[in-house]
């Protein structure tokens, strides 16, 4: 499977079909038994998660996973920014940082701009997930992994976060891979749809062909 620059791929499939496995092997939390993974021309098959983070960012399913709860919103954003390396002994607070973060946070429209110094654990799930999304896209990754990132949210918030995702991805022309259980989301968002079953890619459609797909077609495929 090759993901082209600019693709927004939605991945669907049954429980246990291998969606998460696919995503985890790309992110590096699972090591592969066979095959290889290349990220932006770099071979990363056996590299650790931290090494791959130069090219890949990830939004987790659980809002608690993507952010450090005891740290403030600002500290979380600092962690996500491009930097000189985590062994650096330079101060992590920089001039102009606060203003920049405030701008970014207010663009999310989640009320986060008043919470810059709040510990993330006191935010709502939606706010945490929006922050997580902002952090993942802050360093403009070559590939953005979205792991059912709206599954733990209520329908309204889920919709907001999904719209936000669409907006950020389009604005920054990010290449993305999104796992979802919502067929409607898979059909609405993205230019490419991949269906996984029993560890194999069963369907891979893009562009106009994807536009023509309907939820009923997919349901039919699920049952077969």
């Amino acid at each position: 499977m090759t993901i082209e620059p600019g693709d927004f791929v939605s991945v669907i499939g049954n429980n246990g079909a291998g969606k998460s496995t696919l995503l985890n092997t790309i992110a590096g939390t699972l090591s592969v038994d066979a095959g290889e993974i290349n990220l932006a021309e770099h071979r990363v098959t056996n590299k650790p998660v931290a090494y791959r983070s130069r090219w890949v960012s990830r939004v987790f399913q659980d809002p608690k996973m993507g952010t450090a709860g005891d740290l403030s919103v600002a500290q979380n954003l600092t962690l996500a920014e491009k930097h000189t390396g985590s062994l650096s002994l330079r101060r992590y607070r920089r001039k102009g940082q606060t203003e920049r973060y405030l701008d970014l946070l207010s663009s999310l429209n989640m009320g986060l701009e008043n919470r810059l110094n709040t510990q993330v654990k006191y935010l709502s799930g939606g706010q945490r997930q929006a922050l997580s999304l902002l952090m993942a896209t802050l360093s403009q990754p070559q590939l953005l992994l979205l792991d059912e990132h709206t599954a733990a949210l209520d329908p309204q918030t889920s919709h907001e976060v999904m719209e936000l995702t669409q907006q950020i991805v389009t604005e920054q022309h990010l290449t993305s891979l999104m796992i979802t259980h919502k067929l409607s989301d898979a059909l609405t968002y993205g230019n490419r749809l991949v269906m996984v079953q029993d560890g194999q890619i069963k369907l891979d459609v893009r562009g106009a062909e994807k536009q023509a797909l309907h939820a009923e077609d997919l349901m039919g495929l699920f049952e077969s």
Partner: protein
Amino acid sequence: MLVTSIGQGLLWAPLVIGVFLTFRILDIPDLTTEGSFPLGAAITISMMLNGQSAVVATLMGFIAGCLAGWVTGILDTKLKMPSLLAGILTMTGLYSINMHIMGKANLPLLDQRTLLGLLPAEWSLNLQTIIVGGVIVLVVVGGLIWLFRTRLGLSLMATGNNPAMSAANGIYTDRMVIIGYMLSNGLIALSGGLIAQSNGYADIGMGIGTIVIGLASVLVGEIFLHGRKMWIRLTGMVVGAIIYRYLLTLAMGLGFPVNDLKILSAVILVIVICLPLLQNKYRTKRQLKRYLKQIGVDENATNSHPERRTLTKGLFSRNQQRTPRLKGRELDD
């Protein structure tokens, strides 16, 4: 009596700060403490007996502690052992190493000049202890406050808080854990070296119970001083160390024999673990009462039990005392 406790507490403070680093920042209970504390003492005393100055010997004690922490860190991260087991292994191994360094179970100083001896001899022992301890604690606390303002410090905090997220943001978490272990055990060994100089000897058994002392002091410190700012938390650790010493001195004043001090330490730890739990219960009750009053519900009419089950485990996660209070604030909003 209080003055003696302040002096002794300041000498114990690096140990408490070391335990704080692994226990609170990295979220690891590190038993290496019981081995690295006497290691610091053994290295410091034997180097002084070999003619090194007290300053060099104390510093070498610190470095030896860092090495012990490195070993535990490697066992934990690279060999993927549970951190408790990694600590136990290093601690057990260190017993033999400490025996080799000291050559016998108890190694007294002869007439070597300790760090305290660098100060004018006409000053009282308590004053000397407080000055030496105070200077060292200032350097340690100052250094750590600086560290936690750097990228490295932020990465350490993030690693302890959420390793998965840290790795996803490019932090090599194994390295951070190893650095944390090294710093922590370095400070613990430093404390061991200081206590040995203050006592005038190093003893193979002086590490027994130090992890309990450390944890109890951390919790006592957090009861008295809590905040999110690093300098408040670190000052809390120093205060905790001093108060803990004072409690022990009080107990000894009541006629407890020295041999019973260990069980007393254990009991103090149990008490300081339970105290915040009771505090929590009481606060939750009061808040619920106020809230019910606000919305005009008769408390006795409802069946809802105001007590929220709080497990002892919950206490070992950070900021436990503050959670209910903040919840109350949100209610007020």
